[in-house]
């Protein structure tokens, strides 16, 4: 970001001498290997601007096929003719970070036996899906993804019958539970952008030291299971850790394990506090 530091394009000789005395650039490398380069350049309007760039270099060695290596030296042609090597910003850009979360949807996990066992347990009770009113669990509802997620919270709760309110499996009677949003003639509302966000395997880590990084968190938690997301709160100005982070696991059991073993763990001379992330089910922790 250019920051204007002198206003007048032409000034006295003393200023010009002063300008020459300015170092052409300053380079500072911090402990993370991030090099900060500060340059003073004169822009098109004749104003002097300060340009700060932060560069981090990582050396990656890659083996490529001989023919492919040969092709890297090819001259550009067609509309690219004469252009310098390297990606052109007009045609190539880097998109936003996206996550490919691989997980089994569990269709094949449930064997016939499992189904039999659950059926026995629920003998005498009527199973009712709250989404489509069919005789299966709400979590197994084929319309789960297409209908609104208004009761997502309840779906998650229903996975832990010990704590959840007993709305899922209820004796069929007059008091059939209908979510408030679906009572009366109200129709399911439209999509919510957050519907896919699942927080049930997310834990909150607090009392982290200032210089904790994402990779530290990864390092600390990856023994418990595969991590789908780490969010480390950073100060906007200093880019230092604000002291808390959220860690999402692929499955809830792993998160539970991490929670049990790392709560009260001494890390960087601070005692970590680990708890379930509030947004899902604060009551369960």
């Amino acid at each position: 970001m250019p920051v204007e530091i002198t206003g007048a394009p032409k000034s006295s000789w003393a200023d010009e001498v002063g300008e020459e005395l300015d170092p052409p650039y300053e380079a500072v490398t911090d402990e993370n290997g991030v090099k900060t380069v500060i340059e003073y350049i004169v822009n098109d309007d004749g104003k002097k601007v300060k340009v700060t760039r932060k560069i981090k270099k990582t050396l990656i060695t890659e083996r490529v096929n001989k023919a492919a290596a040969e092709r890297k030296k090819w001259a550009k042609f067609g509309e690219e003719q004469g252009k310098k090597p390297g990606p052109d910003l007009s045609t190539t850009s880097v998109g936003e970070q996206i996550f490919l979360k691989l997980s089994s949807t569990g269709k094949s996990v449930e064997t016939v036996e499992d189904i039999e066992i659950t059926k026995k347990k629920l003998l005498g009770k009527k199973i009712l899906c709250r989404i489509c009113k069919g005789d299966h669990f709400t979590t197994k509802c084929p319309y789960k993804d297409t209908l609104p997620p208004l009761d997502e919270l309840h779906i998650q709760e229903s996975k832990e019958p010990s704590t959840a309110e007993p709305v899922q499996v209820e004796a069929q009677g007059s008091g059939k539970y209908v979510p408030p949003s679906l009572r009366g003639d109200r129709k399911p509302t439209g999509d919510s952008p957050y519907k896919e966000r699942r927080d049930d395997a997310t834990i909150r880590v607090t009392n982290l030291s200032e210089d904790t990084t994402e990779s530290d968190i990864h390092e600390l938690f990856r023994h418990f299971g595969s991590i789908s997301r780490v969010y480390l709160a950073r100060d906007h100005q200093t880019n230092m850790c604000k002291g808390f982070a959220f860690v999402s696991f692929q499955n809830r059991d792993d998160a539970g394990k991490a929670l049990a073993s790392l709560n009260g763990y001494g890390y960087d001379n601070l005692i970590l506090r680990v708890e379930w992330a509030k947004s899902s089910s604060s009551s369960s922790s």
Partner: protein
Amino acid sequence: MRPILLQGHTRSLTQIKYNREGDLLFSAAKDHVVNVWFSHNGERLGTYNGHVGAVWTVDVNSASKLLLSGSADNTAKLWDVRTGKCLHTWEFHTAVKRVAFSEDDTMALAVTEQQMGYQGAVAILKIDSVLEAGEQDEPFVISPEPTKAMVAAWGYLNKYIIIGHKDGMISQYDWKTGEKLTSKHPHSDVITDLQMSPDRTYFATSSKDKSAQLFESNTLNPLKKYVTDCPLNSASITPIQDFIIVGGGQDAMQVTTTSMRQGKFECRFWHKILEEEVGRVKGHFGPINTIAVHPDGKSFSSGGEDGYIRVHHFDEDYFKFTYPEFQHIGA
């Protein structure tokens, strides 16, 4: 992962293709120009200018020396990959919807559209004789029955060609005699893509009937079926992990009537063997027209109706993923 966005095309993508080593990515779009990119960083190496109609299809030979493209200007063109020079042009009566090099690169097939009173056909082009002698006699033509061919590919060792039809039928043809060997009718709507496995012993099809399927090449026996909730435009087989990547979305003409969420413009990962969806990759603003997987299985690309190509390099945990049920086998 951070996808690389390639914006070299001004109109929607029609087909993308990696070369054999996977370092180059060729893309065809409706804007008349074929582009070639370095797949590792998204740098554009060059363009192949010369078509005067939408380019429907592109294929590169195994040595990455020759490129074949088929266009709505009723021609198929042969290009020098390195310089972008057009080496030969075949003229047809109708648009060329699909081209593919044979396994030994001596021949190629070109699927032509059924238009203006002309029958849809599959022409067998002799690449070798064109390069040596220049002009050549009329290419041998197969007339697929009963409905026109949409896509086609060569079987292993050039034994036969496999054609995907408009009505969802797949058939095997002898390319020397033009005879139909076998056929099956597994899909109920247009077949939009047909991609061979690396050894060509099986192949994946995608169809507007919202499903993708896997077939054995020799017998056309169905092996697997992946049923989704939106019309599919492409299906690709991944090495390393046993996945199939399928992509599609509602028709381009209906896109403006719905929100992006409902459009289902995602690349879906299905487990090849268990026939179960395992993940999705979002990003396109329109239907996905074409998907290609890097031959080493470490990245894949998708081209959409929105004119973008998105090149995705998989994260570390993609390779570590195993099914909970399979973990004891892997360990």
